[in-house]
């Protein structure tokens, strides 16, 4: 007992982890709903509609379905690895989130300073990469252990693909590191303080170079890294049934599913932090009214929901949507409380940006066709890597230009 008293940090961390886990799991669940909705609308369909208003309860249904499906293991499968793979995938995917700062380094909750991050590591970025780099095993092992040819091919592809694109991913990020001069997320974000033109994507002048190309490379590599369309060869239905997780069913499959979304989230968070100023607002700080924006956004959202509830919904759906509306309104009002207002700023902007990128993800999936495998590799090695290298080179030159001038 007194051991815990000695180490309050442990308690706080545990609380944070609990909260984050809860949040993330729900978010992941709803991401699937979000994706299906968006895709549906892109393809001018309705998407999930019947389970709850706007299919809002669909994720719950899916979850239940996964839980109750028979969990079978193919004969001759390497049991241990077969079980290990999905665990590895999901746990690693979620672990990365522990490094993501959702708000400023020090804010006060209930009067005591707290960080909106579980582990503020000195070299957070490297750690994040470290963890994601292990993520490959989930897919590879899954493909190998299920003792079946499609998964094997899928695993091979994915491991090859992930290794290949990891390189250009890292290289494209290094440009940002040069500009920021730190590996710590908070410092990187603080470096971009100011209006949106101080973000690393656009930032120019005095030792900085717009990382727009870097960002594009990063985005592409990230999509490939998360095995998403148009780089979802490992699970290309048309040639490999479902790739590495063909043999998986029930909850193990769900794990892979969630792992994929978790990776998406991580990648988006990273993009936000590195290129788009993390939890910083896009407006100059002199504009004091912006602190009302979160509340305003939520209230507008609530207003629309209320209208929707009143006009379109019937029966049980109306009640459900009403609940959602009340929730939104409530949070919106909550954001107006002076004590909460400063706390909510960072997370709001952060989540907003992340949400945008997630939408972007789905968007690409809805738009682009799948690559052929050789095209994929060629693209990765012959185009992406050189471009990101050149970007790195140029950035470095621009940054050391002043010294050069001084010396020569």
């Amino acid at each position: 007992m007194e051991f815990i008293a000695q180490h309050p940090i442990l308690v706080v961390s545990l609380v944070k982890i609990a909260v984050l886990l809860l949040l993330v799991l729900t978010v992941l669940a709803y991401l699937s709903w979000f994706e299906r909705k968006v895709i549906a609308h892109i393809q001018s369909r309705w998407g999930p509609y019947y389970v709850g208003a706007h299919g809002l309860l669909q994720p719950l249904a899916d979850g239940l379905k996964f839980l109750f499906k028979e969990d079978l293991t193919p004969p001759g499968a390497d049991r241990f690895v077969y079980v290990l793979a999905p665990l590895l995938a999901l746990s690693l995917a979620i672990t990365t989130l522990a490094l993501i700062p959702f708000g400023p380094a020090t804010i006060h909750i209930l009067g005591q300073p707290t960080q909106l991050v579980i582990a503020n590591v000195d070299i957070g970025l490297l750690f994040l990469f470290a963890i994601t780099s292990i993520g490959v095993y989930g897919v590879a092992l899954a493909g190998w252990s299920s003792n079946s040819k499609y998964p094997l091919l899928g695993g091979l592809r994915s491991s090859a693909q992930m290794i290949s694109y990891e390189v250009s991913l890292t290289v494209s990020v290094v440009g940002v590191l040069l500009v920021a001069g730190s590996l710590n997320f908070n410092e990187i974000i603080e470096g971009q303080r100011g209006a949106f033109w101080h973000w690393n994507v656009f930032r120019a002048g005095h030792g900085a170079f717009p990382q727009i190309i870097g960002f594009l490379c990063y985005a592409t590599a990230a999509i490939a890294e998360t095995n998403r369309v148009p780089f979802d060869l490992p699970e290309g239905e048309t040639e490999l049934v479902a790739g590495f997780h063909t043999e998986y069913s029930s909850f193990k499959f769900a794990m892979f599913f969630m792992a994929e979304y978790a990776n998406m989230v991580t990648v988006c968070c990273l993009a936000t932090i590195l290129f788009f100023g993390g939890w910083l607002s896009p407006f100059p700080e002199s504009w004091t009214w912006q602190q009302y924006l979160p509340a305003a956004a939520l209230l507008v959202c609530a207003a629309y929901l209320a209208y929707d509830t009143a006009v379109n919904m019937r029966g049980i759906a109306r009640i459900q949507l009403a609940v959602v509306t009340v929730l939104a309104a409530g949070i919106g009002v909550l954001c107006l409380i002076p004590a909460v207002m400063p706390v909510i700023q960072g997370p709001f902007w952060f989540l907003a940006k992340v949400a945008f990128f997630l939408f972007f993800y789905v968007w690409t999936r809805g738009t682009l066709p799948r690559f052929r495998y050789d095209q994929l590799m060629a693209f990765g090695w012959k185009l992406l890597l050189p471009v990101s290298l050149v970007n790195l080179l140029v950035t470095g030159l621009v940054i050391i230009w002043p010294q050069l001038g001084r010396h020569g």
Partner: protein
Amino acid sequence: MSVPFILFFVFAGIAVAGAVLLIVAREPIHSALSLILVMVSLAVLYLLLGAEFIAAVQIIVYAGAIMVLFVFVIMLLNAGVEERTDWSKLAKYAGLPLAGFLLIELAYWLARPAAGMTAALHAARGMGAAPTRALSEMLFRDYLFPFEATSILILIAILGALVLAKGDE
């Protein structure tokens, strides 16, 4: 028994277990996994030693790249259970016992606080985490030439791998 001790013993145990697994496992993939285990736990130990950067690199390069390559190759060649042929009498009667002896010997002689080691201990207490910045400065200033040399080495390795993989075409 403070936290570092606990951590050390836990992860040391994991590392040793992983190494033993590597030996006893008959499926190459299991060996690979156990080796990954060793590497990760070593990374943690590096953290304990305050070498954050090395820890990260250890995981990224070793666990994240090299071992992935191993796994990849194992999958590619579909390496099954290794056959326990025993044709090398020398290895059987001399190699293994001596290897064991080597293990014990080294462990024994490093266990006793060697000359100057105790002093080093106290020095170690005071030191904080090895700052990545200082490390990078040392790497790019004092060790610049070796660094470049290794880059060349890597390039050559890539070319060699390409040539070998291309085979006779």
